[in-house]
């Protein structure tokens, strides 16, 4: 009997996509036929937000999960600077700053009268504590590299923080706006992972693990008070459950909606808004540059010619935007290189022949769980077969992928979205899983890091993107879209997601 039941479960995984489509269609049909709900009499000031993944814990300075930031960033925790909806650096807990001419000394003027949710005062000693903690030998900060250039942190007075760097870093202020660089207080640090205490507009209330996180308005907030009195973030990983929850009105907004097949029908319903925005996610076909035949730039370019990015995005129906380098169109300094390798199978074949890659050559494509990789892998394999290559698809769990592909570089090709914002530095590293070793790129990147003049920075950004497009260490596919679905009366949610965040400080109900 038990065996029989187990089989049923495994069968579900095979059937689920078909069923989901069918069910979503019927769900939608019913919902559209059902009468509109009665409008509430009073203006609503609570919001239930849906998220696909639950964070493992709630301290963004101790783990990389995007879900941690999607709950806490700018809601519970704040940093010296913050990143806004456009991806620009704005003042956060530091109201202003000056940078010395050599680009080495940053003097931050801190807001006064700011306190943490537990009453602890925020001043320069907190800045010193937070950054030194991230830099310590036992630090478990997922982005320790952001802090590594810091030479010293000094507190001439409580509202001034002077940070001296070992070398100029053009992106320092941007980095200090990340979730990894938020301010945390020494007395709450031991329990930060389960009871987050920050300075933000919302206070943590409780976390029902596996289900939801609740927070409430911080009445003592130093900045503009949030309009929402209470927020619940619910975790719904099943796409049809998410569709049902939004249609039933149980969840007011899904900033990242996981059931693209339901979108057309939701769009047709005026009660809901479907909002397509951008993210920092660069989806790429990563190639192992240390392994033949990918050592040959002609082979890498051939693959770029062989893949029809527009058709790929259409097949995935995920609203992604094609890219031609490791940079997304929504980020400042973007240069369009999508025309560098137009879809041209004949040219791809010629290049492969020139490089001595025989038709029928076999290569493996390792696929982590997300749909862009699993479904995308099938589409790309078919496209590569058109130019004579034999592609073996190897689906794997994310933990396996991290171990085999990312850590051990044991792969030919893989599909992955690099979701960290403006991460051109990964191509300048000594050791990184795709093994791109280019002294020219490194020299350019060093120049970019040291440039303090904005015009020079933009110029070098363009040069870096061009270099990657020419060398094509990986085949750049598309920028991941942010597909948001929410009640049409909910206003103020971010359209784009330049960094992982659900900043709710400006969200309200229009009635």
């Amino acid at each position, binding site marked *: 009997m038990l065996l029989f039941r187990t089989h049923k479960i495994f069968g579900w995984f095979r059937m689920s996509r078909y069923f989901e489509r069918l069910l979503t269609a019927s769900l939608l049909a019913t919902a559209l036929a059902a009468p509109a709900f009665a409008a509430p009499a009073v203006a609503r000031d609570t919001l239930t937000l849906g998220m696909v993944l639950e964070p*493992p814990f709630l301290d963004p300075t101790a783990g990389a999960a995007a879900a941690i930031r999607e709950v806490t960033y700018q809601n519970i925790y704040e940093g010296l600077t913050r990143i806004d909806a456009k991806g620009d650096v704005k003042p956060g807990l530091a109201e202003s700053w000056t940078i010395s001419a050599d680009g080495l000394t940053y003097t931050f003027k801190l807001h006064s009268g700011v306190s943490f949710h537990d009453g602890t005062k925020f001043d320069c000693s907190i800045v010193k504590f937070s950054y030194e903690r991230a830099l310590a030998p036992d630090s*478990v900060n997922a982005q320790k590299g952001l802090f590594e250039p810091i030479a010293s942190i000094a507190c001439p007075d409580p509202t001034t923080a002077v940070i001296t760097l070992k070398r100029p870093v053009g992106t320092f202020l941007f980095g200090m706006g990340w979730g990894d660089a938020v301010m945390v207080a020494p007395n709450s640090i031991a329990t930060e992972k389960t009871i987050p205490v920050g300075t933000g507009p919302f206070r943590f209330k409780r976390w029902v693990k*596996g289900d939801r996180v609740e927070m409430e308005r911080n009445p003592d907030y130093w900045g503009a008070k949030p309009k929402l009195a209470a927020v619940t973030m619910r975790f719904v990983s099943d796409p049809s*459950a998410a569709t*049902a929850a939004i249609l039933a009105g149980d969840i007011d907004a899904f900033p990242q909606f996981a059931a693209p097949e339901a979108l057309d029908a939701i769009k047709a319903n005026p009660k809901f808004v479907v909002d397509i925005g951008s993210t920092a996610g660069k989806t790429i076909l990563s190639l192992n540059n240390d392994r033949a035949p990918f050592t040959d730039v002609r082979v890498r370019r051939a693959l770029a010619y062989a893949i029809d990015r527009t058709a790929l995005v259409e097949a995935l129906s995920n609203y992604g935007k094609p890219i031609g380098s490791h940079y997304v169109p929504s980020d400042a300094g973007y240069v369009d290189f999508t025309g560098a390798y137009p879809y041209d199978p004949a040219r791809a074949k010629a290049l492969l022949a020139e490089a001595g890659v025989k038709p029928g050559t076999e290569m493996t494509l390792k696929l982590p769980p997300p749909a862009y990789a699993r479904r995308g892998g099938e589409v790309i394999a078919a496209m590569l077969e058109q130019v004579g290559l034999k592609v073996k698809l190897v689906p794997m769990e994310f933990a396996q992928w*991290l*171990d085999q592909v990312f850590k051990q570089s044991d792969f030919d090709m893989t599909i992955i979205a690099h979701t960290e914002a403006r991460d051109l530095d990964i191509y300048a590293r000594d050791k990184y899983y795709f093994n791109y070793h280019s002294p020219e790129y490194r020299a350019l990147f060093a120049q970019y890091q040291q440039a303090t003049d904005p015009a020079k920075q933009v110029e070098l950004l363009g040069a870096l993107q061009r270099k990657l497009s020419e060398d094509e260490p990986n085949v750049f596919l598309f920028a991941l879209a942010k597909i948001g679905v929410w009640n049409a009366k909910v206003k103020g949610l971010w359209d784009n997601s330049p960094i992982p965040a659900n900043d709710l400080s400006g969200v309200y109900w229009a009635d």
Partner: protein
Amino acid sequence: MNGFLAKRLVALVLTLLAASLVVFLVLEVLPGDPASLILGTSAREDTLAALRHQMGLDRPVWLRYLSWVYGLVKGDFGTSYTYNVPVAELIGERVVVSLPLAIMAILLSTLIAIPTGVMAAARRGKAADTTLMGASQLGMALPNFWLGILLILLFSVTLHWLPAGGFAGWDAGVGRALATLLLPALALALPQAAILARVTRSAVLETLGQDYVRTALAKGLTGTVALWRHALPNALIPVVTIIGLQFSFLLAGTVIIENVFTLPGLGRLVFQAIEQRDLIVVEDLVVLLAGSVIVVNFAVDMLYAVLDPRVRLDGAT
């Protein structure tokens, strides 16, 4: 009886030891590093090493196994790698969802199945039998998650009677908490009831042919009384066996239904823990579930003795 208990206890300990060793070794060879799952793709080598040290993953394998088992013996389940809270607390939070859900489902399933099975047996070959068994065939063929979504569609999206998912929590009141468990319990119960009804029907049919039922009828009892008082009680042993198996399954085999209804139950905890390589949580849960299956089986054996006085538990006949 004492010999029986002692045997059962030894079996329990040995099974748990075997389960602990197997799950530990399987997770040991499974690729994936919990530290790099937490710290992601930008983490530096020294940061990963610091976290592995914090988690105790830098100790040798045998030492980790022994200290885990030693902890279990002392009643200490350890600390979750991902959630960073004691595993006992984590499991406790989930059991208060999974256990009531399993009990509700098994009650619903039994309440539906036994009358259905008995009725079908009593009207063997007639229209009622054909209809009921046809319905049960359908119930068996229906995957429970599909049924779950149909229920959501009807009761939540269209009628707005019940929420489309989530668990209200016991602190929101027993009534509200039970209301959120009702649809998932029903979705779990119906396919189970279909199986149980068929088992009941065939067991009752078998007893109906026995001499004592004929005797009961001969001494003047009506068919209904003979059926309920003589045939059904004697048919209960296979029925109770199936209920026991179904209950064990319901404790943690409900991951799909938990996903459809976004319930924070044990099934989802196991699933998430495996994905996140939260090894200690997986290990604890496997041992705990192995233990609970043994306990349920034991309870079923005890019930045999209650149901049938001829069954003696010391193994001698």
